[in-house]
C-alpha cells in the first residue's frame, strides 16, 4: 500500500553530513507520510543512524533541508525536534539508569507544581496510566531503570514517545535487545501507532521485520541512498541485493 500523496509529514532533502573528511551521509533525500512506516536499511556504517540523528537533533547536518508538514524546519538540538513532535527511541535506549521509570519518561519535560517544583507523584500517576496500556505487566515504578529487563526498559522508552503525542516517531532498532515475545509487543505497537496516523522511521537489520512492518524501504550504502522501494512490490531478495551489492531493482526509485 502506498500513501505517497499529499504533503509529506517529513521531508529530508539533500542531506549531507561528514565527520573528519568522511562523508557519513552524502546528499540523501527521504520522505515520510502520515500513517506510514518507512524502513531504513543498510550495513553498519551505511549512514542510517547518522541521517536520522539529523532529524532527531542529535547531530547537525552540514547541508540540506528538512521540511515538516511542508514547512521548512530548523532542528539544531533534541529540544527543537521535540517541538516538531518528533520523538526518537534510540538503539541505546537513552535512559538514565539511576532514575526511575517516571523520571525517565518525563526527563527534560518534567511536570511541575504551581510552585515550580517537580511533581513526582503526578508523574508517577501518569506513568502508571500509560504503562497500564503499553505493558500491563509493568510493576517496577519505584526502582531505577537499571533494575529493569530489556523489554521493560524498551517500554519506558516507547512510553516516552507515545505519551508526548509524537507525530513522527524514529525507532532505531527497537527490537535489537528484546526476546521474541517482547519483539511481538513492539510490532503490535507499531501497527497500532500507524493506525493512529503517526509516521514512523524504522531502522532495522531484520529483513523479515521490514517486510512485515514497513510500507516502504529506503536502502543506504556508504552514506548514499541506493533506492527506495514499495515493500509490497518487491521480494526480500531484491532488498538484500540493494543492501549487499547496491543493486537497484526496476521497481525502485
Amino acid at each position, binding site marked *: 500500500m502506498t500513501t505517497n500523496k499529499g504533503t509529506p509529514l517529513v521531508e529530508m532533502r539533500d542531506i549531507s553530513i561528514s565527520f573528519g573528511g568522511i562523508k557519513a551521509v552524502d546528499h540523501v533525500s527521504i520522505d515520510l507520510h502520515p500513517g506510514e512506516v518507512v524502513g531504513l536499511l543498510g550495513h553498519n556504517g551505511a549512514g542510517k543512524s547518522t541521517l536520522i540523528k539529523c532529524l532527531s537533533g542529535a547531530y547537525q547536518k552540514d547541508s540540506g533541508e528538512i521540511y515538516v508538514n511542508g514547512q521548512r524546519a530548523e532542528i539544531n538540538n533534541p529540544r527543537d525536534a521535540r517541538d516538531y513532535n518528533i520523538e526518537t527511541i534510540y538503539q541505546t535506549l*537513552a535512559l538514565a539508569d*539511576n532514575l526511575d521509570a517516571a*523520571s525517565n519518561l518525563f526527563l527534560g519535560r*518534567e511536570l511541575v507544581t504551581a510552585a515550580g*517544583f517537580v511533581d513526582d507523584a503526578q508523574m508517577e500517576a501518569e506513568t502508571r496510566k500509560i504503562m497500564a496500556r*503499553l505493558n500491563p505487566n509493568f510493576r517496577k515504578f519505584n526502582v531505577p531503570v537499571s*533494575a529493569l529487563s530489556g523489554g521493560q526498559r524498551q517500554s519506558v522508552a516507547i512510553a516516552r514517545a*507515545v*505519551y508526548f503525542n509524537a507525530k513522527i516517531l524514529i525507532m532505531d532498532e527497537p527490537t535489537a535487545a528484546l526476546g521474541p515475545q517482547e519483539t511481538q509487543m513492539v510490532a503490535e505497537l507499531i501497527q497500532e501507532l500507524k493506525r493512529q496516523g503517526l509516521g514512523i522511521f524504522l531502522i532495522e537489520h531484520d529483513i523479515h521485520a521490514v517486510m512485515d512492518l514497513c510500507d516502504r524501504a529506503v536502502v543506504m550504502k556508504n552514506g548514499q541512498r541506493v533506492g527506495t522501494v514499495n515493500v509490497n512490490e518487491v521480494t526480500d531478495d531484491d532488498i538484500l541485493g540493494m543492501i549487499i551489492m547496491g543493486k537497484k531493482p526496476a521497481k525502485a526509485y
Partner: protein
Amino acid sequence: MTNTPLSAPPAAPGHTAAGGNPVKRFLSATEIDTRLLGMLAALLLIWGGFHLYGAIVNGNGAFLTPRNLWNLSVQTSSIGIMATGMVLVIITRNIDLSVGSLIGVTGMTMGILQVDILPPILGLGHWSIWIITCVVGISLGALIGAFHGWLIAYRGIPSFIVTLGGLMVWRGMAFIANGGKTISPVDSTFALLGGGPGGNVGATGSWIVGLLACAGVIWLLVNGRRQRIKHEFPLRPMWAEATLGAIGCGAILGAVVLMNAYPLPRGILRQMNLPDDAFVSHGFAIPVLIMIAVGIGMTILMTRTRFGRYVFAIGGNPEAAALAGINTRWMTLKIFALMGALSGLAAIIASARLNSATNALGTLDELYVIAAAVIGGTSLAGGVGTIYGAILGALVMQSLQSGMVLIGFDAAIQRIVVGVVLVLAVYLDNLYRARTK
C-alpha cells in the same frame, strides 16, 4: 495526554506485603533508608568508642559531653556546607580539588575588604560591612567556580586538571593578596557567623528553631500522605507514620536539649555583667543553623527541582541527558558555580570562627570535603548521592578528627586513621550496594 486506546485497564497498585522478621517489616513499612541507619550506627560507634577510650585510658570520657558535641557541630559546619555542593559535582562524574584553596582566596579577599577597604569608607564597625563582605565573598566564590565550570564544560579540560590547577593558583593568590600576612580581627558582626562568643541563638532561640523543625517534619509526613491518597499510591501504615514523626521530632528536640545543656563560660558571663554561677545556654551556633539551612535548601534543590533531576540524569547517563534536551554544559558550569558559592560561604564561617583571615585557611579541606561526600554515599562512578549523607559524612570525618585530638592522638596517627576509615567506608559501601542490588 495521549489518545492511544491500547486496551487493558490500569492495574491497581497492590501493596506488596513484606514478609520476614519484625525488623524488616518495620524498615519496609517506614521506608527508612537502611544506608542512613548504617551511617548513624557508625557515628554512634565512633562517638561511644572515643568516649569509652577516654574514660578508660585517660580516666576522662570527654566526647559525649554537651560541650564537645556543641564544638563538634560548629567544627562540622564549613566542611558540611561544602560537602553538599561536592555531592552535585561528584554525581555528575566530576571532581573539585580547588575548594580548599577557594576558601583561602575568598577568605583573604573578605578579610582585606572588611578590615582594610570598607572601614575607611563606611566607618569602623558600620552595620553593613559584614553584609557587603559576605555578598562579595560568596559572589567571588561563585565566579571562580563558574570559571572552572566553563573551562571544564566549554573547553573540554578534565575537571581533575582544571581544579588541580585551581588548587595551586588560588592558594598562591591567597598568599599574594596580602603578602602572606594574617588579617585580624575581623568585623565584630561578621565574627558571630563563626559561632564564636555570642555567635549562638541561646535557649529560647533554639526551642523556636526546634519547634519550627518539628512542625516541618509533621507537615512533610501529612503532605506526603495526602499526595499518596490523591494518586492512590500504597500508603504507609498509620503506626509507621507516627513512628517516623516521633523519631524525627524526638531527634530534633533532643538536639535542642543537648545544645542548651552547654552553658556559656565564665568569661563571657562577666562580659555580659552576669554572676559567675549563672547558667546561660549556648543553644545552636549560628554556623550550624547556616549548615542546616544549606542542607535543607540543597535537598529541595536536588529532589524537588528540575535542576536536581538533571544533575542525577547527567550522572546516570550524560548522553541520554543530552538527547532529552538537557543543556549538559550549561548545567556543569552552574554546578561548579554553586560549588564555588558554597566554598565562599564556608570561607565566611571558617574565617569568622578564627576571627582572622590567613592564606592557609582551608588547606586540605578539599580532601575532607570529598571524603565526606564519599563516606556519605556519593558514588564516584556518578549518578548516586544524597545531601543528608554528605552532611553526615562530614560529621563522621569531624568526629574522628576531634575525637582523636580529645584523646591525645598526635597528628600523624590522626591522618592514618582518617585515611584508613575513608577506604574502609567506601569498601563497606560497595559491599552494601552489592547486597541490596
